[in-house]
């Protein structure tokens, strides 16, 4: 099945699912979530099947490729393909989708059309997420990049919390601003490229001699959009509002998957298409990354809203990811790519379990809790595990990626790495202070009895915790997929890892 259009199929299934869910006849409206879950699981199966076709040792940059003329007058092709990083991102998105649908089971209790649309929007979002990671045509990427905003806007603006409108608008305006700047870059890039009917292909735009100034300007245009999306300090302020107003499942897809498009874009487009400009910008980017790490962590410590706190931890974690990417070492790059995967699971667990607690307490305010380990020991336990993953406890997945980022960064930029390492102390503070305030202390007097974790909730949490443990102890399968992609990207940038500075007689292992 080498010519089977895996990526198109993976993208189309959820779209069909969305149509089916939205078009369910009145009698079957209450089945919307079941149908949506079914489609998301089928997509996941196809995603795994596609991953099995993937060869880690291939020489090609992209595999599972498809290419069709789309708008040849403008050089736009419908071209899909994945390298290890893109494939891992798609798999993560496909795995998180059923988890999110299951977590969103009772998000629209009034049911009816509103519920159908809710789940249909989530499925549409999946299509766009697959597309954005699979696109190997810069313009196609841009289309998906902007199209993603639409379902998210409605998911936040129509289904979110009390300040959903404000948050949705803020999200949209930030993203559009970034997107429009990038559009300028996209068009400019085409003009510098070879042109022709497939002139927007990534392959055609790699290794161009753009001239220093145009390359830098284009780099900035792309980087700005990705920095907003990632989000990095100081353009992060839309995230806490969006994350706290969105439904938890939306927040997971937003922070866990969508924001990765930012860091993914930095690897695929900034580094690969603008290698010289990337090197030129590195000092500034590293400074912004380190600020993001510390700033996000300090802000997280100061939050009193659970969801905002988790959002700020993500600002810090994205700082680590960007740091590793721009360290331009294989270790840092592989660490960042793995971090993108791990962060998806760990932030999903934090948001979803946090939301389970919020639903029981009826408040997002941390001070409204206290002593809940005595009320819901099961939820407290899994919340702690999720938190420990957030603070990168060794043995859980995020540790490997975090230390790899730091080790890889230190090879080239010791000062940045050492300052960033302070983030691990702050991480312990924001997680453990939250846990202490919410879970410890005397058992509270509650007017209504509260249930501990339910069967459905266990199903939501189990795959995430399994991912922490498996990737924590055995990250090799993921790393084997990511390594070649990282090496290839660094090859395009034209850098090699610094040799050990003090190796003894060159024979070190």
């Amino acid at each position, binding site marked *: 099945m080498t010519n089977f259009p895996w990526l198109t199929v993976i993208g189309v299934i959820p779209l069909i699912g969305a149509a089916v869910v939205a078009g369910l006849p009145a009698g079957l409206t209450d089945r919307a979530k079941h149908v949506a879950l079914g489609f998301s699981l089928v997509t996941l199966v196809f995603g795994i099947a596609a991953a099995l076709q993937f060869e880690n040792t291939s020489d090609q940059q992209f595999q599972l490729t498809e290419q069709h003329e789309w708008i040849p007058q403008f050089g736009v092709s419908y071209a899909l393909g994945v390298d290890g990083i893109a494939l891992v991102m798609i798999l993560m998105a496909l795995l998180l989708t059923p988890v999110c649908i299951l977590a969103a089971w009772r998000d629209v209790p009034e049911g009816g059309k509103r519920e159908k649309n809710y789940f249909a929007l989530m499925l549409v979002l999946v299509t766009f997420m697959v597309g954005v990671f699979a696109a190997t045509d810069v313009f196609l990427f841009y289309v998906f990049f902007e199209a993603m905003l*639409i379902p998210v*806007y409605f998911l936040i603006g129509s289904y979110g919390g009390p300040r959903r*409108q*404000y948050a949705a*608008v*803020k999200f*949209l*305006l*930030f993203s*559009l601003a970034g997107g429009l700047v990038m559009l300028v870059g996209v068009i400019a890039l085409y003009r510098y490229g070879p042109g022709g009917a497939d002139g927007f292909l990534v392959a055609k735009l790699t290794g161009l001699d753009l001239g220093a100034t145009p390359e830098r300007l284009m780099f900035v245009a792309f980087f700005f959009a990705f920095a907003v999306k990632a989000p990095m*300090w100081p353009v992060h*302020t839309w995230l806490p509002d969006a994350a706290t107003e969105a439904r938890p499942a939306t927040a997971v897809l937003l922070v866990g998957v969508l924001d990765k498009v930012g860091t993914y874009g930095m690897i695929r487009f900034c580094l690969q298409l603008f290698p010289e400009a990337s090197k030129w910008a590195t000092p500034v980017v590293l400074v912004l990354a380190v600020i993001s790490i510390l*700033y996000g962590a*300090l*802000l997280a*410590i*100061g939050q009193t809203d659970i969801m905002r706190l988790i959002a700020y931890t993500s600002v810090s974690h994205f700082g680590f990811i960007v740091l590793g990417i721009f360290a331009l070492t*294989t270790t*840092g790059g*592989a*660490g960042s790519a793995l971090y993108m995967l791990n962060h998806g699971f760990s932030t999903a667990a934090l948001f979803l379990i946090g939301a389970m607690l919020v639903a029981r307490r009826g408040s997002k305010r941390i001070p409204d809790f206290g*002593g809940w380990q005595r009320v819901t020991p099961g939820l407290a336990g899994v919340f702690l595990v999720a938190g*420990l993953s957030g603070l990168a406890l*060794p*043995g859980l997945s995020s540790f*490997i990626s975090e*230390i*790899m980022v730091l*080790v*890889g960064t*230190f*090879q080239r930029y*010791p000062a940045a*790495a050492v300052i960033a*390492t*302070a983030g*691990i*102390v702050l*991480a*312990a503070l924001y997680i453990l202070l939250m846990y*202490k305030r919410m*879970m*410890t*202390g*005397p*058992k509270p007097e509650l007017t209504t009895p509260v249930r501990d974790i339910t069967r459905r909730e266990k199903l939501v949490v189990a795959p995430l915790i399994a991912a922490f443990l498996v990737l924590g*102890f055995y*990250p090799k399968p993921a*790393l084997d997929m990511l*390594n070649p992609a990282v090496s290839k990207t660094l090859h395009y940038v034209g850098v090699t*890892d*610094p040799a*050990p*500075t*003090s*190796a*003894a*007689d060159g024979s*070190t*292992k």
Partner: protein
Amino acid sequence: MTSLAHLATADGAATAATGVTAYAWLLVALPLLGAAVLLFGGRATDKWGPLFATAMSWAAFVVGFVVWLAMLGRDGEDRAAHLHLFNWVPAGSFNLDAGMLVDQLSVTFVLLVTFVGSLIHVYSIGYMEHDPDKRRFFAYLNLFVAAMLLLVLADSYLLLYVGWEGVGLASYLLIGFWNHNPAYATAANKAFVVNRVGDFGLSVGIMIMFAAFGTVTFAGVQQAAEGGAGEGVLTAIGLMLLLGACGKSAQFPLQSWLGDAMAGPTPVSALIHAATMVTAGVYLVVRSSFVFDHAPNAQLAVVIVGAITLIFGAIVGCAKDDIKKALAASTMSQIGYMMLAAGLGPVGYAFAIFHLLTHGFFKAGMFLGAGSVMHGMNDQVDMRRFGGLSGAMKITWITFGLGWLAILGVPPFSGFWSKDKIIEAAFIGEGWRPWVFGGAALIGAGITAFYMSRLFFMTFHGTKRWQTDGDDAVHPHESPRTMTIPMMVLAVGSGLLGLVLSLGGTFTHWLEPVVGGHEEGEHPVLPVWLLMTLTLLLVAGGVLLAWMRYWRDEVPQVQPTGSLATRAARRDLYQDDVNEGVFMRPGLHLTRALVFADTRGVDGGVGGLAALVGGTSSRLRRLQNGFARSYALTMLAGVVVILGAMWVIQ
């Protein structure tokens, strides 16, 4: 130098593990299985869980014992074995395998951890009998044993790090085991966060190793360090590792968490915060001997830290009335001795580990004794409310007494053999160092004798300061067998272990292939007989002073105001005040300011775009809502139209 005696511990030179040694992974797997079964099994395992966990711990001991026997069957130089597990972190040029290093040093720890750990599991069956959450308690204990064994068996700094933070997690969970008391929850957080400051050092150390040598395995770093790596690099690595060790082992300046950690149940204090986990810093330094041997400045830092901490802990120990906190201060001080010895280089490594072993027995024994006293005294910890308990709790009194004699260093009890050697080693050298460090070790021995005798007399002798009737009536009684038997076993160790392991230098010879040995011709600046006499005189003086004040004289039940020095020592020499003033409060202000600035400043100032949405007046918001909704739809329509147009043109 003794580097020739170093075993090459890589896949290359250390023999690949065969026979039973190839099953060394079970050491970690068995207790880990126990923890997993109890945690994931939930309430279904309530009934048999504690016994299962105890069995898993003993099973690990049996495996460790068999591995040790197999090791004894080989010659000294062939004893180290390397067990390759799997390809763990193949990230870019950082390609690391997970493996275990089963050598004399790690097996010593394996035996200590599994034996003392298993005894404490048994003790906990009695001690935690009535706790509703005891399943969780045993799960955490198993988790601790697994993590600690991983720590000592790891073959690389990164895998060690996993065990390192794993024991930190277990410690956090167990300190906060009764976290319905907010103070205990705070103590747990404090322990974890202070340890993370140490882990900052360990992380940076790992980064330097990789950047400088391209490897983080013990074997690789050893090869690089002995192959002429620059002293500057090794000093930097050494200092970073020392920072990590300070966090884990509660050494100055990261000592502040240990006293508060006594919030945990007493078996935890015995196992984690006395016998094993807190000694991990000493293990790290000794394991990294190849780094420190070539970085004299880092070594000096280790000695200084050890010397400061041993005096610091001893002073604090003199003023504490809480029996567990007094013991905790003593632990800090004793680890200071070990650290000092480890910093002395090859003359001290073996004695550091030797003292670590004997201390593991006598201090765990005394903590269990303290737990037994609390068990019989309604969980009272204030020694001013004890007194004269020797009659009511005979077994506890005798076992505790043996531990007391051991820590005093009275011959022939265990501590005499290990601590005296450290004092001797501290007096070796040239210039000012032997006088300063030897002097500190010597004076520390005297203070130790005073505060430990104070503790012993206040608890077991003198007048009874408790009532059998009235409001706070207590009926002191001996603890059940599950508790006393472990105490007796540890007391035997406190009595004899030092002597047995010293006969013919057994223990130092055993470790020599790993850490090198005592060089011939190195003698203390004072004759050994004089040092021994001085030590014993100081010890006798300390005991006598304690006897006068806490046995012969009446001990006030209410804490007297005390001198300036006493008050300072009661407040742990103002360690928390310093930390609060220098780190916590400024940090709090910084955080608050940033939160304020983020909502007002950064958000508002990200440009006109954000300013547009940043306003909160409802009028403006309504305006924007309409604007953005239509904007989104327009954009969608725009995309569709453009694409459609392109299609048509085509």
